[in-house]
């Protein structure tokens, strides 16, 4: 499980951080420049929370983890089937649910939750620092706007989404890896199925959660 957290979480920090920074810059600059034109300055904090914390943080983190770790999980599991490693585990009396599936679910879910929070932090603060180079906005006023807009529900929903997405990614990718039967040519097919199905389910789950909590 620690190896999974290391690969899915720690090693993904630079990529997630860079993307969060770029997206944060875009959203913050657009908010700071466009909203005042329509007299909507008071909604700035709400829009940042809505776009970054509620939606982009968990979703973008899930996309990156699907591309980076989901594919690795289904490929690794599929190759273990082809190389008879799963059979070897079985005949040693080793429960593959505990040895293969559980560490990946726990590792990926933990990593997605932590990465999602990291994404939010970098996108909001890092994005502000870069935007500060272009715009004249003090950190204190930016922070005040932001913190008065964030509610406990926003944080809980963001974490709930990350928890759900992490479980979906690990479960679907392991399942597709285990769907490989005998040939190594099945492995890339299973990986493609894993990516497509996980993306679909993550979008669906995101829409359902948003509908459930914000309508």
């Amino acid at each position, binding site marked *: 499980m620690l190896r999974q957290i290391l690969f899915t979480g720690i090693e993904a920090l630079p990529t997630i951080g860079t993307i969060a920074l770029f997206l944060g810059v875009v959203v913050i600059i657009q908010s700071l420049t466009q909203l005042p034109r329509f007299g909507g300055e008071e909604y700035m904090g709400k829009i940042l929370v809505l776009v970054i914390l509620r939606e982009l943080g968990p979703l973008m983190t899930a996309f990156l983890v699907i591309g980076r770790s989901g594919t690795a999980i289904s490929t690794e599991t599929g190759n*273990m089937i082809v*190389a*008879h*490693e799963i*059979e*070897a585990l079985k*005949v*040693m*009396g080793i429960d593959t649910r505990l*040895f293969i599936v559980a560490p990946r679910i726990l590792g990926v879910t933990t990593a997605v939750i932590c990465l999602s929070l990291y994404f939010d932090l970098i996108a909001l603060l890092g994005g502000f620092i870069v935007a500060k180079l272009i715009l004249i906005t003090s950190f204190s006023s930016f922070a005040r706007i932001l913190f008065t807009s964030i509610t406990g529900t926003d944080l809980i929903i963001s974490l709930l989404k990350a928890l759900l997405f992490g479980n979906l990614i690990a479960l679907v990718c392991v399942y597709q890896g285990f769907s490989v039967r005998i040939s190594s040519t099945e492995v890339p097919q299973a990986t493609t199925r894993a990516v497509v199905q996980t993306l679909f389910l993550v979008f669906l789950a995101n829409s359902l959660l948003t509908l459930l909590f914000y309508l």
Partner: protein
Amino acid sequence: MDPNLQIQNLSFGYPGKKIFDSLTFAAEKGHSLVILGASGSGKTTLLKLAAGIIFPVSGQVLINGINLSQAAWSQAQTVYRELGFLFQDTALIANMNISDNLALPLRYHGRGSPDEIALRVLEFLRQFGLENYAESLPAQISVGLKKRAALARALINQPRLLFLDDPLAEADLRFQEMIIQIARAQKSQGTLSLTTTSNFSDAVRLADHVILIQQGKIIKTGSPAEVETAALQALKEGQI
């Protein structure tokens, strides 16, 4: 409990293709059985059926009296812990080094303290000439060394039933001699062993009982001497 294996009216196949039809044989403590057959005759499949890795379409396999296809995992696990299985293509865990591969069944089943497990692994690494490759991944060592590591892993749990899939194939002379010595030692300790080969001379070296299979059926069983005529006939027909 003494090791015991019973194969009763075993049939196996895939949709549209029957591989085995009503096979029956049995073995017990100290027996060394060899399944002899041509390449592609299903020896590996039969070995996996006998070890409870895959399950028959009909009939049953009883290991120590337990039908693994119907047993709960906890019960099946007690049987699997008694088995050692050497896969033809080694099936070492690719992302673990050789030392961890050997330690895996001991650690998982809590067979000893970490220090005891480390000592046992070291003993096996030395016995199989792998001490210089303990930290290597399977992909970093030769096929011959991988086979030695896979055999060491199969034996490290002190199995009561040993399944060896074509162990002498592609093995150098030193490793062949090692396998023969191990097979004899295991037999003297009462281990039941089931081995596959397509080579009659290998069968003679490894077995006290040969099961000759052809086109999904057992055509002859008995001591190597008793099976020799049938094996030679099959050889003439290109069946082995």
